[in-house]
């Protein structure tokens, strides 16, 4: 996918919006769901969604440091902030729907689950050291899952017009993120095959990346379990992952990116219930439940930047 990234940066700058552009007091908040059980599950889903956007934001911050040129670095700085904006919007929706604990005017940030905490820990410690091809190939797969499955599912489930208005804006942003994401994914496929292979093998042997993989895989499985509990059809995830494979693999360069090959194969296994992949990963999910909290690092301050407020 040939993309003019200079034009894209201009487009991004021209497409900015703020939380204040959404009327958070508009009628319809009761249309979130009438089902009490569904409401409780939705609360968990929204918190997960918010955290996923937030950790995605942090990944973009790491990518900005590794971008091969100034324009792409600037784009990633914008995407970092835009993902934060999405997380802020999702927190504001939770506030609107009464899903935040604590004082009404000073609610508490929902607690991330243990797998998210582990991913936050890893991102905080190692993400800045990761080569661009790792995060640059993972991020489009997550974006496509968010865009193609999670957000669509949310909009099918929730009828609140404010939620629809907010996600219309979020989806616009995400389409630009995907455009740049696949462009970079292809960019990483240039070069001689043996060089790509040697570099990938070298990166894969990096223990810091292995820790990251050990944190990331159970998070995906836990998210999938939560989504299925909420009523998401697994086919939706399957379709999303197929889309990643189709778009990412539509050019030779995309297909030659070893990370694309690794991630598309791994994604296929994630959405295939029968795959043996789930045996160790589900075991990891259960194991992480017993992960001693005291082993976690103190919550980094970037996490505390989330807010539901339109103005500060």
């Amino acid at each position: 996918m040939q993309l003019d990234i200079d034009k894209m940066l201009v487009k991004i700058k021209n497409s900015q919006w703020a939380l204040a552009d959404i009327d958070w007091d508009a009628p319809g908040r009761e249309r979130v769901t009438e089902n009490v059980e569904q409401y409780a599950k939705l609360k968990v889903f929204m918190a997960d969604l918010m955290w996923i956007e937030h950790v995605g934001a942090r990944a973009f911050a790491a990518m900005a440091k590794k971008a091969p040129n100034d324009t792409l670095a600037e784009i990633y700085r914008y995407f970092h902030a835009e993902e934060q904006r999405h997380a802020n919007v999702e927190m504001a929706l939770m506030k609107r729907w009464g899903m935040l604990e604590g004082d009404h005017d000073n609610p508490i940030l929902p607690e991330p689950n243990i797998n998210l905490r582990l991913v936050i820990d890893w991102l905080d410690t190692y993400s800045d050291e990761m080569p661009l091809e790792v995060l640059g190939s993972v991020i489009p797969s997550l974006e496509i899952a968010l865009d193609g499955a999670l957000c669509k599912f949310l909009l099918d489930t929730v009828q609140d017009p404010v939620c629809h208005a907010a996600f219309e804006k979020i989806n616009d942003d995400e389409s630009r993120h995907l455009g740049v994401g696949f462009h970079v994914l292809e960019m990483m496929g240039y070069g001689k095959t043996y060089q790509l292979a040697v570099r990938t093998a070298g990166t894969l042997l990096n223990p810091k990346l292995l820790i990251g993989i050990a944190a990331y895989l159970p998070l995906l499985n836990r998210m999938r379990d939560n989504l299925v509990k909420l009523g998401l059809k697994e086919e939706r995830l399957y379709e999303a992952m197929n889309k990643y494979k189709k778009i990412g693999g539509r050019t030779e360069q995309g297909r030659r990116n070893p990370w694309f090959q690794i991630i598309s194969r791994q994604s296929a296994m994630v959405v295939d219930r029968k795959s043996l992949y789930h045996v160790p990963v589900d075991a990891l999910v259960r194991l992480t439940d017993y992960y001693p909290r005291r082993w976690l690092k103190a919550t980094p301050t970037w996490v505390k930047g989330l807010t539901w407020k339109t103005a500060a």
Partner: protein
Amino acid sequence: MTQYQDEAPVAGRRSRRAADPVAAKVVEVLIVGAGFAGLGAAIRLRAAGITDVAIVERGSEVGGTWRDNQYPGAACDIPSNLYSFSFAQNPEWTRGYSGSREILEYIRGLARDNDLLPLIRFQHNVEALSFDGGKGLWTVTLSGRDPIIARSVVMAQGPLSNAGLPNMRGIESFKGKMIHSARWDHSYDFTGKRVAVIGTGASAVQIIPELVKIADKVKVFQRTPGWVLPRLDFQSPEWTKALFKKLPFSQTAVREAMYWVHESMALGMIWNTPMTRALELLGNRFREAQVKDAWLRRQLTPDFKIGCKRVLMTNDYYPALQQPNCELISWPIANLSEQGIRSVEGIEHQVDCIVFATGFEVSKNGTPFPVHGLGGRDLNAEWSRGAQAYKSVQVSGYPNLYFTFGPNSGPGHNSALVYMESQIDYIVRSVGQVAGGQLKYVDVRADAQKKYNEGIQKRLAKTNWNSGCKSWYLSDDGFNSTMYPGFATQFARQMASFELRDYRLV
């Protein structure tokens, strides 16, 4: 400063032109600007016996940059003993790094003690310069006044003299107060106010600690974090002042020592050497020592080589950012709104006042006003792809026209005044060639200028400034026409020789 105006000989109004002999008279040397460079040039010209000198100044007071930059905390980041003229040393500096008021007082002293005030025509704003090759004279067009005819013109208007609010989205919609750091509004009371500071460059790091002391809330909007190094500032003890007064050579010795310490910095700042790494290590350790939070430290960590942009010398910037009433915002700014600044994370940061510490419009691609040389050639057009000059002071095709802080004369590691003195002495020598009317003009040969610039650009390619970061040193297309790629000593040596073969004498 109306007393200056009263004392200055003001050119006659248009209606009195015919009766006014001053308007028709040819001035030997006309200097544009009464800042450090203009006053320094006037002093040295007169010392060389060239006394027919006039200075036109658009403001109503001397001081240039230091008259304009009076924001709270404004100070020089070069020690005062070095940031002053060697021929006018000041034993009374109260601090190692003096504040802008004290520097302005020093400049006023230069004008007063050297009896320069009668030469200065205040509120004379130059609109254009045009050279008449036949007569060998420059016509200096002024706003609302009669033109001045001069044999030689010294451009000393300063590279950092044009400050304006940046062209940001929605700037017209903001209803609160807006202040540019170089046009400070001293009548505005910041006490208890919510303030945003846009920019984290050399001015911002001085303003922020002062604002944090009085404002209710200070939000600092950062685009690119710079390298910060500690500043060894101190209050000058009385005994050094007494010593410098009694034994001036002791101050010269201190100045020399400071000069060589700064010269050694060139090794790390201008070129990528092990010393660059050592300076970066110092910067990193300083940040680690001063900033406790890991994320804030990350936000403040530069991603370019030290020296690529101006290094920030401050001890109180990082502590100020960590005060409870201060917040660093590194999200990009989306736009300004009626009540504040909307950043890309979707939040509107509502403030009473926005301080723009966004720098100056540095003349990298062009001249501050039209300059027409031999045959009507236009300097602005010639410089549109990046300014070029011969030894930074003269441009081929523009005879008898001299620049201070001209193209490629900026230092990154030493006092600008050291460079300025070399330029002034060169100008004095060149002006001396035409003063008295023996020659009509001296013009640099185009091939000499071309050769000089090829050498400069070749050397610049190996410097940290051209190592990939965006800075005001570079034009939008990456051309470096601001910095001199070498030691101050090299620059001084280059300016000490006057190569007649590089000139056309007419």
